[in-house]
């Protein structure tokens, strides 16, 4: 299948140094934070690709680079064959830009409180001089609100309804790709179900492609066709949901899945994971997970593992086979 988005060797480094004078006086070097490091993946048309990871894993930074809110330090993002950060043909850039939209986490912060809902939703089209007559009303009905709501202000809506307005706005310019950054994290469970169902329906109806960014493994398992697990800015495992949740191959994925609370885990005694995510300014040498990994060998401290095919998944681990075998033993025991 044709891929709509292809991300190659994407890297983003932020300069988090103190001001020049402080560095001179305190004799400190520049501090560089690598938020995303050498990440590559493809999103086929009409599929849902999910990025999961804990805070600081770089998932939102990747999302921002894909929509063009941030420029990559290295590597490239191609959408429909166009690299937005290098393309010079203004018409091509324009055409691709209107194919991408974004939905943010906080529906209270992402809607202008002084604008009427009608203007908010029509803005992506109005900004390009398109025809907006009746557009907002039509979209509001498509996301399960009523046409009369177009004359109201954002404060008149609940969190779930606001997220529907954000979705309507994202649909206005008839995009191909929607980047959803934690779209339901601020919502209650029952409202979350409504919004996720709506997103699935719209995907089928308009043939959308989603990049779905979330820290909630259960939501990702439900929505995604393919999942990429990030750790400290690196893609450590990529697999379809069934493979990932049944036999996670990377020790970090295994740790993450074991730690996630389960609805049927009554009185389950979780062996809590050791340690925390290391400092991204001075990441550990070799594999970033080696200080917390139960299977680490000297090689893991020396050489950063590349993504390779292991049993139906792509895994960046020197010891993926051992990790899988250990997983199987534990399930049998």
């Amino acid at each position, binding site marked *: 299948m044709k891929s709509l988005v292809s991300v190659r060797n994407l890297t983003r480094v932020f300069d988090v140094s103190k001001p020049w004078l402080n560095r001179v006086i305190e004799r400190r070097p520049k501090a560089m934070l690598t938020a995303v490091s050498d990440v590559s993946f493809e999103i086929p048309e009409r599929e849902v690709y999910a990025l999961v990871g804990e805070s600081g894993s770089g998932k939102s930074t990747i999302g921002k680079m894909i929509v063009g809110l941030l420029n990559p330090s290295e590597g490239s993002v191609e959408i429909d064959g166009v690299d937005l950060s290098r393309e010079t043909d203004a018409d091509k850039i324009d055409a691709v830009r209107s194919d991408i939209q974004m939905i943010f986490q906080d529906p209270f912060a992402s809607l202008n409180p002084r604008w009427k809902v009608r203007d908010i939703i029509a803005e992506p089209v109005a900004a390009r001089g398109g025809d907006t007559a009746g557009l907002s009303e039509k979209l509001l009905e498509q996301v399960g609100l009523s046409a009369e709501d177009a004359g109201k202000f954002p404060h008149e809506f609940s969190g779930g309804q606001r997220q529907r307005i954000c979705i309507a706005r994202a649909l206005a310019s008839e995009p191909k790709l929607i980047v959803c950054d934690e779209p339901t994290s601020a919502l209650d469970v029952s409202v979350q179900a409504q919004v996720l169902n709506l997103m699935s329906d719209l995907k089928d109806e308009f043939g959308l492609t989603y990049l779905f960014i979330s820290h909630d493994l259960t939501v990702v398992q439900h929505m995604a066709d393919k999942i990429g697990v990030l750790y400290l800015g690196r893609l450590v495992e990529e697999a379809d949901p069934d493979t990932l949740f049944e036999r996670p191959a990377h020790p970090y994925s295994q740790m993450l899945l074991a730690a996630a*609370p389960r609805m049927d885990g009554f009185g389950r005694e979780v062996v*809590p994971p050791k340690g925390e995510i290391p400092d991204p300014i001075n990441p550990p040498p070799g594999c970033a997970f080696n200080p917390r990994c139960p299977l680490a060998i000297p090689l893991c401290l020396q050489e950063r593992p590349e993504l390779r095919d292991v049993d139906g998944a792509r895994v960046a681990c020197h010891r993926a086979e051992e990790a899988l075998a250990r997983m199987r033993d534990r399930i049998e025991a």
Partner: protein
Amino acid sequence: MSEPVLSVRNLVVEIPTRTGVLKPVDRVSYDIAPGEILGVVGESGAGKSMTGNAVIGLLDRPARITGGEILLHGRRIDDLGRDDMRRIRGKEIGMVFQDPLTSLNPLLRIGDQLTETMVEHLDLTADEARDRAIAALDEVGIPAAASRIDSYPHEFSGGMRQRVVIALALCAEPALVIADEPTTALDVSVQAQIIALLKRLCRERGTAVMLVTHDMGVIAEAVDRVAVMYAGRLAELGAVREVLQRPRHPYTEGLMGSTPLASRGQRRLRQIPGSMPRLGNLPDGCAFYPRCPKAQEACRVEPGPTLAADQGRAACWFPVEQPEAAE
């Protein structure tokens, strides 16, 4: 069952407003036994945090308790004055809030914050308190506690800060800890660490814990009994396994069904139509009836039966019939 640490009886909290009196907590009753973790779940605005705040006497005005009683070890605490309540808060009831950064003073070293609490409530000198503070930090799993006791809160990560807050809540050895969304701001792996810590401390010391959360997974793994709240009222109360696997209240059933885990393998998630009514706009009768698939005429007129702390499971006229457990 042993004497409960906390008994809440028919608690009513009211907020007078220009347009009428709101009842964010309406006739809520429950008990917590020593060593027991009671989970309180519900959606935002259901009154979970308000119930907790009423127990520790931290209701923001104009909200106030207008009915019912709160008993700690059989002694009424809801009618105490400010100074008496101060003596209980921190000593007999500990608190853990959602955001560890706002519950620690950024200008004080964490050691000073711990010793302040202990000197205030326990009969200790500053040196003794410092030793106990180090022991307390050690117990919640902060590495090199003796050297980190003089650090400021900003020098800790989110998970470590929440451990400090837990140490702070437990340092005067309270009989009851109220944990209000203690892991909501944390990552999954850190959340697992904090929940394991709370469970261990609760088991070892026999502390009663009221765990307020909206995460069903956390509820399933951590608590013994669960109270489900809807629009200020108790919808269902019972042993966690019973409530989660065989919910009797249609709201609990809908809530469980709408989690992605419960709909595993299905294309669509089950959803409850509509949303929770605003407090100023509650329907007569049962607050859930406009969204309820089983609503009948009686539900429109009469609110569901009020749950007593020790009997009844669901505040519903037509509870869901669940097949008896075949275990």
